[in-house]
């Protein structure tokens, strides 16, 4: 094997890939070859570093220099100066990681300091397309240990004792789930990895598959051994092409090394994994709908019981685990259940990955011990809201969750505390909202999503959510009444209680939770026909203030000729004609036009 004196790690996750990281990697390779350094320096495409806001990201070892917001133009200088001459290009280094000209270890940087990476431990560190790098990080040791030194009962007990709970949303104890399927006698059992990550703004599972696909495969094999399944499926959405490609490479490499296939570790245990692509329907993240989809049927959920552990895929006992849940398993087997319980809380041990998005400075992927106060995530890790705006609320759990307000910002994040607040962990999306977000509009956005994604099998979800959306649309158009608010609550509770599957049972949550915490915003829309945040178009009026210098620019851009006024005199908008497009406000060079 060649020895390199330097490694250049270029982020190949979807976030950075969409901002040209593949070209950046290519340029590094070209330039390094031009300078005849290709035998000394290795360029590697890796998984997500988490700090997507600062992407594309490149890290150069051995120094661990963290270059952010990379461009093609910066590449040559980094090769010339840093890689060739050893002079770190400080102008391009992520500012937070410099301490008076010295490079801080990444674990010292604000964004990473409070994080604890278990599920993401290899993301951004290994080359996900090289099984040897995973093996170097103790990869497949847990599978080896389980197959050669543990009985399947011991594996289940270890996972039970660790207290690992499903990271996909429900929070059901993984070991208990495995224990349901293990005793069921059947000629064939299945283990499925649910990688149908559907929440808007969530990308935890995608990043794990892209950055550490072998961890998921290893865990599936361990789970297969535990419950007696010899066949596994990864159900992943086709919208994740990088994840799919890396999974397929990983499966092929694992088969080649004999880590999947027949008689693994000479134990007599066979295990095989296949990838199944989903078309991106949100409901297919629900267990029974997912099974239907793999079977080639339309993705619709069905009544439980029978639970998949009794009769799942093709009627056989089946266990479905989420990507992030699985990626914890090998480390629990390697380090023991006590180790896992060192992080997190009594009832929610371990860590959780969150996708931070919305009005937050450090958009990206963070992994924190359960029980970390929300405040630390928003301010210490996330860096607060941009432009000094005031934090208003955070939406957790996506379209199934609810919002948490600044009054509850000290809440420790775990499965149970979020449910108490009327939200839920969900898969781990966290959308931050500031003073400029209208909570009615946010609720409407999520409901619009669930109405689109409802499979249509049961009436409460199919009809009920649609009616709720109609009411919300009325409210944002200024046609709502106080009665509408009560109806939203009654309807919402009914849908929650009567829907067939989790999609419908949780769909009203965003509405109910915003109604609970931000009722005054709803009332402002209904009673005063005003949108306090200035979002709902129909309730806004554009006005020209005394700052107007009469430059006439607004007159020229107004598409409906609603603005009148003489040169060098204050102009006026005819409210009856104005279509509230906002073009005048954008065009005004004196900030004289306001929206109220």
């Amino acid at each position: 094997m060649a020895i390199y004196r330097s490694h250049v790690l270029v982020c190949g996750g979807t976030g950075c890939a969409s901002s040209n990281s593949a070209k950046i990697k290519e340029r590094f390779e070209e330039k390094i070859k031009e300078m005849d350094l290709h035998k000394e320096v290795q360029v590697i495409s890796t998984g997500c570093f988490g700090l997507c806001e600062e992407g594309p990201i490149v890290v150069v070892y051995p120094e661990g220099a963290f270059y952010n917001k990379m461009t093609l133009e910066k590449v040559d200088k980094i090769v010339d100066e840093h890689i060739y001459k050893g002079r770190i290009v400080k102008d391009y280094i992520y500012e937070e990681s410099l301490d008076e000209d010295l490079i801080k270890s990444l674990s010292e940087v604000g964004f990473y300091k409070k994080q604890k990476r278990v599920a993401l431990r290899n993301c951004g560190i290994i080359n996900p397309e090289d099984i040897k790098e995973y093996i170097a990080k103790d990869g497949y040791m847990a599978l080896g240990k389980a197959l050669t030194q543990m009985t399947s009962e011991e594996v289940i007990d270890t996972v039970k004792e660790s207290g690992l709970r499903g990271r996909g949303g429900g929070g059901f104890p993984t070991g208990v789930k495995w224990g349901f399927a293990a005793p069921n006698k059947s000629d064939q059992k299945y283990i499925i990895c649910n990688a149908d990550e559907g929440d808007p703004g969530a990308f935890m599972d995608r990043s794990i598959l892209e950055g550490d696909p072998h961890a998921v495969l290893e865990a599936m094999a361990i789970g297969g051994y535990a419950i007696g399944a010899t066949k596994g499926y990864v159900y992943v959405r086709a919208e994740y092409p990088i994840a799919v490609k890396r999974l397929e490479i990983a499966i092929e490499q694992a088969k080649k090394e004999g880590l999947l296939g027949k008689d693994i570790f000479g134990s007599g245990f066979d295990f095989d994994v296949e990838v199944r692509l989903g078309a991106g329907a949100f409901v297919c993240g629900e267990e029974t709908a997912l099974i239907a989809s793999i079977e080639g049927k339309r993705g619709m959920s069905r009544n439980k019981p029978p639970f998949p552990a009794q009769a799942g895929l093709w009627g056989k006992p089946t266990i479905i685990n989420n990507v992030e849940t699985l990626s914890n398993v090998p480390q629990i087997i390697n380090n023991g259940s006590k180790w896992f319980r060192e992080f997190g809380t009594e009832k929610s041990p371990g860590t959780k990955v969150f996708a931070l998005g919305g009005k937050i400075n450090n958009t990206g992927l963070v992994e924190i011990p359960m029980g970390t106060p929300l405040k630390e995530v928003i301010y210490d890790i996330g860096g607060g809201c941009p432009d000094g705006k005031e934090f208003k609320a955070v939406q957790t759990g996506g379209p199934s969750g609810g919002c948490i307000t600044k009054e509850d910002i000290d809440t420790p994040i775990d499965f149970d505390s979020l449910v108490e607040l009327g939200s839920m962990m969900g898969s781990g999306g966290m959308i931050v909202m500031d003073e400029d977000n209208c909570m009615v509009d946010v609720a409407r956005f999520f409901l619009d999503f669930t109405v689109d994604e409802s499979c249509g099998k049961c009436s409460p979800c199919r009809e009920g959510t649609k009616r709720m959306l109609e009411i919300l649309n009325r409210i944002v158009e200024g046609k709502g009444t106080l009665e509408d608010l009560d109806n939203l609550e009654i309807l919402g509770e009914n849908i929650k209680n009567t829907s067939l599957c989790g999609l419908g049972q949780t769909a009203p949550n965003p509405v109910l939770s915003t109604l609970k915490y931000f009722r005054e915003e709803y009332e402002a829309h209904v009673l005063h026909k005003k949108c306090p945040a200035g979002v709902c178009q129909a309730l806004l009026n554009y006005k020209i203030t005394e700052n107007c210098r009469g430059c006439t620019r607004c007159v020229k851009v107004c598409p409906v000729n609603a603005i009148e006024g003489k040169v060098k005199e204050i102009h006026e908008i005819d409210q009856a004609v104005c279509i509230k497009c906002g073009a005048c406000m954008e065009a005004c060079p004196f900030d004289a036009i306001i929206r109220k």
Partner: protein
Amino acid sequence: MKSLEELKKLRDESKKNMEMRDTDKKTRIVVGMATCGISAGARPVLQALVEEVDKKNLSDVQIVQTGCIGICRYEPIVEVYRPGEEKTTYIFVDSRKARIIIDEHIIKGEVVSEYTIGSEEKR
């Protein structure tokens, strides 16, 4: 994969190439690689150090480059930082000397005085 031992062997082999990405190492060897260093022959020195550290399985040693150290007439310069020791500056290093420095200083813990800047300045 037929046994855990086989996997462990593969792991240990693969580990070597990954060790560079661990930035918390105790011993640091710094090679001056500005124009002055490179023209005086620092590149083969750097390569020799990297190879030797790999060959001797020294997992706790980080080899980095740096810019001009400021005493260009002594290039190629190699500095060694070890916990509990003062910095040692070796001058006029070539690949042969580099290997000796690894053997004597890094492995056995004995500074190779005759290559240090101190011995030159006494002359």
